[in-house]
């Protein structure tokens, strides 16, 4: 497997971009939420008026990766989009439950419903950026990210697309944090977006993904999670390895029921 990483879009409580991520690696405490005001550089207020925080995280991460990854000249139908999320759009899901609870089923909010659909963020990126290639959303806790990368590799290997924009997105929601505390299994509840602009080129500006593996038996040892870990697996871990130039060591994610995934990075050639 070879996936060239040509662009990077990072959004988190630590700030934006690889410099902010690098600076944050020695910080133990951070705000819960990310600032997405930078979106105003790319979209006007009217365009963003009905866009939820979850979608703004995704849209900003994707747009930064595209800006970084030089997509000029590539037809928009030749750009694939894959969004991995551990939990999906939590806030708008609770908004819809809230509208059912507050006003009853007869007056539940149709807008909250349509923005609580799992693929709302990928669709928002597609609609606002005009991408008409394949568009996919994956949702399976910490296993989302590796799984998304596998499918990205297939799309490029089959020449379905010329570039794939792969992102991991999750949002902080206090009620979910409370629910996680009560649940009998660990649940990462961090927030942010990590997007990679990937191609099938021989080398990428940031490096290469040289292997992605998933399984259910004999999970490898898993390191301590980063303080800004997303539910969507090892996305920030991968981003941190890229900005630190730490290649070759498999990046591990595990699920409490035994599922595991590893991602291995190689340096730019």
């Amino acid at each position, binding site marked *: 497997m070879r996936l060239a990483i040509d662009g990077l879009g990072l959004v988190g409580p630590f700030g934006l971009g690889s410099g902010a991520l690098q600076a944050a690696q020695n910080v133990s405490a951070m705000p819960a939420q990310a600032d997405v005001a930078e979106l105003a550089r790319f979209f006007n207020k009217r365009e963003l008026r009905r866009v939820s925080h979850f979608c703004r995280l995704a849209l900003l991460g994707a747009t930064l990766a595209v800006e970084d990854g030089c997509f000029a000249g590539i037809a928009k139908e030749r750009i694939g989009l894959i969004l991995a999320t551990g939990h999906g759009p939590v806030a708008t899901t609770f908004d819809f439950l809230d509208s059912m609870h507050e006003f009853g089923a007869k007056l539940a909010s149709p807008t909250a419903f349509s923005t609580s659909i799992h693929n709302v963020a990928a669709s928002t990126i597609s609609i606002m950026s005009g991408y008409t290639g394949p568009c996919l959303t994956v949702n*399976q806790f910490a296993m989302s990210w590796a799984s998304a990368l596998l499918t990205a590799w297939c799309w490029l290997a089959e020449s379905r697309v010329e570039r794939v924009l792969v992102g991991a997105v999750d949002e902080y929601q206090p009620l979910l944090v409370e629910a996680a505390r009560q649940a009998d299994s660990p649940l990462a509840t961090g927030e942010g977006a990590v997007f990679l602009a990937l191609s099938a080129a021989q080398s990428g500006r940031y490096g290469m993904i040289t292997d992605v593996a998933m399984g259910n038996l004999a999970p490898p040892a898993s390191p301590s999670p980063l303080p800004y870990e997303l539910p969507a697996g090892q996305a920030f871990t991968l981003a941190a390895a890229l900005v630190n130039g730490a290649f070759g060591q498999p990046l591990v994610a595990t699920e409490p029921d035994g599922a595991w995934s590893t991602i291995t990075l190689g340096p730019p050639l």
Partner: protein
Amino acid sequence: MTGTVCVTGLGCLCGAGGSLPEIMHTLYAGRRAPCAPTRMRCEHDVVYPVFELPASIDLPVDSRTNRSLAMAVVAAREALQQAGLTPDLLAGKRVGVCLGTSTGASLNLLDYYASHKAGQPGDPAEVALWRYSNPGLGLARILDLNGPVQTVVNACSSGSDAVGIAMSWLQQGLCDVVLAGGTDELSMVPYNGFIRLMIYDSQPCRPFDVRRKGLNLGEGAGMLVLERRSHADQRGAGVLAVAAGFGSAADAHHLTAPHPDGSSLRRATQQALAQVGIDAGQVGFINAHGTATPNNDQAEAKVLADIFPHAPVVATKGYTGHTLGAAGAIEAVFTVAALRDGKLPASIGCEQPDPALQVTPVQVETPVAAAYGLTQSLGFGGNNAVLVFGRGDQA
């Protein structure tokens, strides 16, 4: 690595029955059983019908297995049995799981949220059930499968996308076998959501009918065992069909409405045909998405009339309801079954075909001597996914 991908096993359960033979019998008999919801409340002035699993089906639900996951397990076991793949034969192989869902992975913690609003602590068991019931991860855990897992949440095209992605995994050599499909249970959230979006018919749904007013929800799961032809041959498995082509394209148009000219659906169709290496005239029939919403059927009919002016079209949601993330997989199973059986069921619910649409789905059981069948799905957010299956004797 590339190679022909075969279907060697099928499994299904839905409002029309608890196994594929039972379901196809129901479809060919032209029967359907929409009903008032029995497992959830309807608080509307009109009782909007749903398609529930027959009450006789005992699903293996428990504290770590929700209804969606349980349905996936039942359908997977049926498909594996037909494929002749026992746990012993699967051990040591790279067996992928690629499942579409919607409600099945959603954070619809209805009772937990109600407790929270009442200032009471919620039941952690409800959170744990969500945590462990992710359909893809859960199916791999329960069946002890070791390989890539993907839970696709592309709204109503999830099931078709999952099957198409599984084909890619096999063609690229990531797995030996993939359980591909979709599953979704009924839930108050989409039920109330679609009613409030005013695209839910208070009558049994009427795809492509001039009186159509929207969808009815259903529940169910559809599952296909996919493997490369060489792998199937090596173990002497019977080939039911060839999973021949997949296309996927986004509208980039609107969150809840398809593009009216269907341009991306057209492109997805052309991609799928190109992968098979056939032209549209070689497709013997189409299983339409046919949700019975005014917008869906209009956009879909436009593309079907342009690309397949002579192929018979069947719409099967009149039997199953719209099973959301499972729909594409269930209809993929029906497409393979129709290829095998050489006939299409009547498109129940379509009694007065809409003259404004250029497509009239088959209204009676119709023989088809087809080499290829095509099924398409359109989803919220503008996803379009198209699958082409070939008869098994072409593998």
